[in-house]
């Protein structure tokens, strides 16, 4: 059964008076589990695609269905609930909350989900330990290296055990060695859920179980 279904999805943005089509009539189906890499040059529409799947934006036309949920029908508040339960985000710039410790950052999505304080601390500690960050749990993002920050962000993405992790250029701000470690981690994560990753990095794309090429808003190769 497909976890992600995109049917004839288009997305247009206004740039002044002009209308720019970021995505044009995309059809895509992604199954449960495994890593799918969306690869394409800058401005090709890969991030737009990720945002639509992640319910961070709405399509201009077409249907987006994730985990059996048609997103077009959901109001904003319901979309927040959907993201909370279904999606884990990993951003290029890590996007950790600066004045919270690594542990608190990981606990945050569980707080939104209503997990009791004890339960979320235990799970956050376990996730950080799994990612080799147990000694850095009390540190704030500014006190962590780039790799540590991204690992913390991955732990946060897994906090509510979502079926889908979306990663937008997860190694874009990391050196190659650290990037390699992040690829490794995401590959591990993809063993038990779907990871949709937008990347320029060929090395990461090679680790993916499936690579989707995108150019000028259209899928050019759907492997």
């Amino acid at each position, binding site marked *: 059964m497909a976890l992600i279904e995109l049917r004839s999805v288009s997305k247009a943005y206004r740039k002044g008076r002009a209308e720019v089509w970021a995505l044009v009539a995309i059809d895509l189906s992604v199954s449960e589990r495994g890593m799918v890499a969306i690869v394409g040059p800058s401005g090709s529409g890969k991030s737009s695609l990720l945002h639509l799947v992640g319910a961070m*934006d709405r399509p201009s036309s077409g249907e987006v269905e994730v985990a059996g949920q048609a997103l077009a029908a959901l109001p904003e508040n319901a979309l*927040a609930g959907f993201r909370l339960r279904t999606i884990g985000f990993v951003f290029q710039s890590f996007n950790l909350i600066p004045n919270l410790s690594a542990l608190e950052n990981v606990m945050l999505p569980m707080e939104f989900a209503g997990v009791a304080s004890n339960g979320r601390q235990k799970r956050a500690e376990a996730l950080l330990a799994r990612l080799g960050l147990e000694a850095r749990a009390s540190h704030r993002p500014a006190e962590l290296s780039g790799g540590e920050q991204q690992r913390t962000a991955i732990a946060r993405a897994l906090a509510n055990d979502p079926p889908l992790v979306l990663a937008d250029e997860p190694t874009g701000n990391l050196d190659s060695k650290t990037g390699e470690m992040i690829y490794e981690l995401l590959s591990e994560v993809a063993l038990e859920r779907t990871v949709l990753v937008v990347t320029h990095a060929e090395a990461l794309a090679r680790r993916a179980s499936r690579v989707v090429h995108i150019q000028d808003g259209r899928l050019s190769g759907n492997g």
Partner: protein
Amino acid sequence: MVALGFRNAGRSVPRLVAVTLLIGAGFFLMLVMHAIGRAVEAHTAALQRSVDATLQVRAAGSMGHVNMVAQSDILPPEALDKVKAIPYVEKVETYLLAMTPTEGHNFAMVVGVNPGDTKRLESHGEAGTGRIIAGRDLTAADRGKRVGVMGQGFARWAGIHPDKLPAELILDLTRTHPVIFALDRPAAKLSIVGVYASGYVFGDMQLFMPLDTFREIYGVPRGLSWLYVKADSAANVASVERAIRAALGEQADIIAPATVAEFQTTTTRSVLRLTAAGMALSALLLAVIVYFVMLLVVRQRAWEIGTLKAIGAPNGSIAAAFLAEAFAYGLAGSALGLALFLGFGAPLAKQAFGLAVGPFIPAQYKDTLLDVLSVSAGLDAAQLALVVAVVALVSLAGSAHGLAHIVRLSPLQAMRQE
């Protein structure tokens, strides 16, 4: 998220300091205005306590003394019931008065009252009430009996010694005086059961007897010399006065205590309005400060708001964090404002009173009121509650626009705003 909001307030120390100073100044101003308002209220309450809220009603153009030349008209019998029916009238005391000559051109007052009512000395009670120094006061059991209580001066003139009570007093109603005419009534024998002292010469020259006894002795079966009408509060004196005038028309003269009512209408109300306006302006200033700070915070943290939304934060949680941050600024500022108020509130309140309130109050109070007022820079539970309520209110009002902005944004819009 509320805890995160409080922590967010400390993220930028320069901002926290600047906002605390601004909010602190606003709170200081508000507390000063509140202190002035409270001082004026306390002053008014003290005036109300010290001044009798009682009006005197007597027949128009007459002193109401039954044997006084050209002053012997008394109130008609129905006046009492009309006055008793007036709203805010708490009590009506009835008096009948006559005069009796003493030495030379001097005279004493003879007063009929209901036992238990106030025995006012002198014409308007300005000598207060007497204190029994020998014997006893009149009681309800004395109604209709030929008994009386007299001042020590009158007793001395009549040859009655306070140590020898009860004593007999003969009232000769035929004796005259340049202002007293003779009444064709038999002399009355009274048993003096008590002597009082007032510390006031003319106040000690009075004789009180039960009202019924007075009627019998002086032959006044109906009507009354004076009514003492007590309003339920000084604030209602003016209303009661108007109602009496409407009820009795030209039949009566009314002597009302104007001091408190005048002070209340001209000064207390003005000061309270000004201080309330000052407090409202301070609260508005605080809300404007919070508004701009929170707008800046929302703009600076758009990326963070977007992230929180992306990871599933409901709008309510994000709003709670921003509200908590605004509340934290408000608390920090109010703490500074309270500290400033405790340290410098009293002297600066007087300065503020002179500058902000002084020009708006009547000249007769302008120079003296500030000396009389006791402006306190103390804190009580009501003030603390006021501060907390204002902090909550301005946090909410000041953050409302920013919060509405946050709620409207999608995660992506928020991230792209930065």
